[in-house]
């Protein structure tokens, strides 16, 4: 970030401090939290740094405040204080959310926050909503997920924690969140008196930072004290955020010691969680660790069939086969693909066929759209009409070479963004009016000669891959 009006020597020190921080916290965290910092001044031992929002300020102070000061002192022993303050970015032309009040103080001055400190402590606010579709009934069980499913059911059916914590892990989109929601929904129904809290990682992070802001971690922890079942999804995102981890660790211990059930999900087993303290990792592995493996073809077929029955739509078996063979990455993408196909059919009021399915899922099925070049077009067309490639550039005007040349010019206009003069140049230095004439000629012929039209369309499809 450009730091205006600061002495070059100071700017250099700042660059060094940032470099150190970057290597300590890693690129991702650096980009999110530290890159937006702007050095404003260094005066009388006080370093002033601005950030764009209050939340960011709190986060930076709680996570990097001490380190920031230490690094500055190393660079310049006169520094005794680092002040991080909010300076909202100058308004951009970009649309603000409607009805969104702007709270920005005069620039350069600490802005006060308009929320009351107590707000962050309400358990209802901290609870993330549950999706009722994610129940046990809708979870299709197969070899890859039967252990995780059985464990989740045990937890949901038990009065006291059967294993603590339950740690569910598996790759993206295989059903961790589904099982967690199902445990919560089932528990609430079976044991209405139990207090269930479900946290997504971003909620945990956000509310914890707020609590830190008001030095109110005690009441933050308090709200978990009466919880019977605490579930935290995608715990890998708490990685590397030290004080959040610390807090999580304590909260976690307290609950487990009091025999409250804790359920945690992540994308890897506890031992592989990077950027997480050793004691937390080992603690997470104390209960039952259950994995969900990648889907098998059988499971995918079963999932699709169940989903189709649920949607109550007519889908040819060729499409079901196709989807379960081609979308192998995970369950979310498989269901997502089916939803997209059905949504498209409903939207345009057409039947679902293999062709529409391939068209709708174009972005997933093909790794990239091929960018066709004029040279490729010339090569392919020459081969198709059995003429020499050199004839694409030659001055010969015999019909046998002129027509294919015109087709190639036509396709160059359709399939590339090149200007007409440039297309002309690539065809032996012809004028752009020649290209325009070729395009017109091919369009006319397509109208009058269906065989010719099919030929051109075939070439087009081949070129597009």
């Amino acid at each position, binding site marked *: 970030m450009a730091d205006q009006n600061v002495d070059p020597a100071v700017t250099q020190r700042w660059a060094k401090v940032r470099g150190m921080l970057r290597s300590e916290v890693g690129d991702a965290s650096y980009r999110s939290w530290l890159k937006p910092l702007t050095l404003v001044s260094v005066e009388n031992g006080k370093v002033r740094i601005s950030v764009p929002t209050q939340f960011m300020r709190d986060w930076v102070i709680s996570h990097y405040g001490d380190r920031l000061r230490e690094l500055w002192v190393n660079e310049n022993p006169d520094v005794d204080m680092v002040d991080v303050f909010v300076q909202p970015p100058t308004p951009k032309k970009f649309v603000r959310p409607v009805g969104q009040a702007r709270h920005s103080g005069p620039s350069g001055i600490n802005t006060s926050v308009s929320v009351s400190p107590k707000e962050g402590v309400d358990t209802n606010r901290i609870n993330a909503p549950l999706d009722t579709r994610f129940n046990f009934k809708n979870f299709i069980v197969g070899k890859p997920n039967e252990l995780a499913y059985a464990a989740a059911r045990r937890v949901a059916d038990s009065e006291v924690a059967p294993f603590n914590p339950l740690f569910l892990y598996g790759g*993206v989109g295989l059903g961790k969140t589904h099982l967690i929601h199902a445990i919560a929904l089932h528990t609430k129904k079976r044991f209405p008196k139990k207090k269930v809290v479900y946290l997504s990682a971003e909620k945990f992070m956000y509310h914890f930072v707020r609590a830190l802001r008001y030095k109110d971690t005690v009441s933050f922890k308090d709200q978990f004290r009466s919880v019977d079942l605490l579930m935290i999804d995608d715990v890998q995102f708490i990685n590397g955020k030290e004080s959040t981890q610390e807090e999580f660790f304590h909260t976690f211990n307290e609950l487990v010691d009091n025999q409250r059930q804790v359920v945690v999900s992540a994308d890897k087993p506890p031992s592989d969680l990077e950027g997480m303290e050793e004691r937390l990792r080992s603690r997470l592995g104390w209960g039952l660790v259950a994995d969900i493996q990648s889907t098998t073809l059988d499971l995918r077929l079963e999932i699709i069939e169940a989903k189709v029955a649920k949607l109550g739509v007519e889908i040819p078996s060729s499409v079901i086969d196709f989807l379960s063979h081609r979308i192998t990455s995970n369950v979310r993408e498989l269901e997502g693909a089916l939803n997209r196909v059905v949504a498209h059919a409903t939207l345009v009021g057409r039947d679902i066929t293999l062709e529409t399915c391939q068209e709708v899922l174009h972005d997933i099925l093909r790794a990239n759209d091929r960018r066709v070049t004029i040279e490729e077009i010339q090569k392919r067309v020459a081969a198709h009409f059995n003429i020499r490639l050199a004839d694409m550039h030659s001055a010969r005007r015999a019909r046998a070479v002129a027509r294919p040349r015109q087709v190639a010019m036509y396709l160059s206009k359709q399939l590339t963004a090149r200007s007409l003069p440039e297309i002309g140049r690539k065809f032996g230095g012809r004028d752009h009016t020649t290209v325009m004439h070729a395009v017109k000629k091919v369009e006319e012929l397509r109208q009058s000669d269906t065989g010719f039209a099919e030929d051109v369309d075939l070439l087009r499809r081949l070129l597009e891959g």
Partner: protein
Amino acid sequence: MSPKILQKNRQFTLKLPRRAAFGKEEFFVSSCNSRAVDWIDRWPKWPLHGLVICGPPGSGKTHLSAVWQARSNAAGFKGNEILQGLEVLLNNESLKSCFVDDADCADQEILFHIFNCVVSRGGQLVVTAVEPPARWAQGLPDLVSRLKTLPVTQIERPNDEMLQVVLMKMFSDRQLTVSLDVLTYIIVRMDRSFDSARYVVETLDVASLSYQRAITIPFVREVFKEWT
């Protein structure tokens, strides 16, 4: 490279910010974007929790999404400002839907949180990007796998009709009137992409101001000659 004609002695020009109009009426529908427009028009009857609008730079993704944003009362953020976006969402439980422009430039972890937040509130998420998420290089798997569940609508390369409209609109945004003959002259000589339309208009505008000349065929010919 900037054409030489722009570097010779010329009158000093001020770069005034241009007003970009974002109303639905301002949006020209052609075969290259009609599917995307269809999607926007069918809101709120969307079957899924959002939409991905892909297309080359300058193809009108932001414009179209802004139309949706206004209709749906969604929050809107640029991809490089979504940290503030997440904060706004988490501070306003009443905000349900969200639009992220240039999502392919966004911090993916933050976008992941925004996706979860929007879906858990029963809202909808519209994102724009040049390529569909399934093709993002080094995408965060957790995010990409979620975005892949959204329908993708692609704005294609402009056809001649579209190019004409785009040029006309861009000239008129700069208070320039250019005759149809001149537009045709330009179209058969330029690269046929939204991006190059923007470049052509900008170059001609600056050149015409500097030289105090109207945008006519002879003038365009001179400018283009400097190019090649």
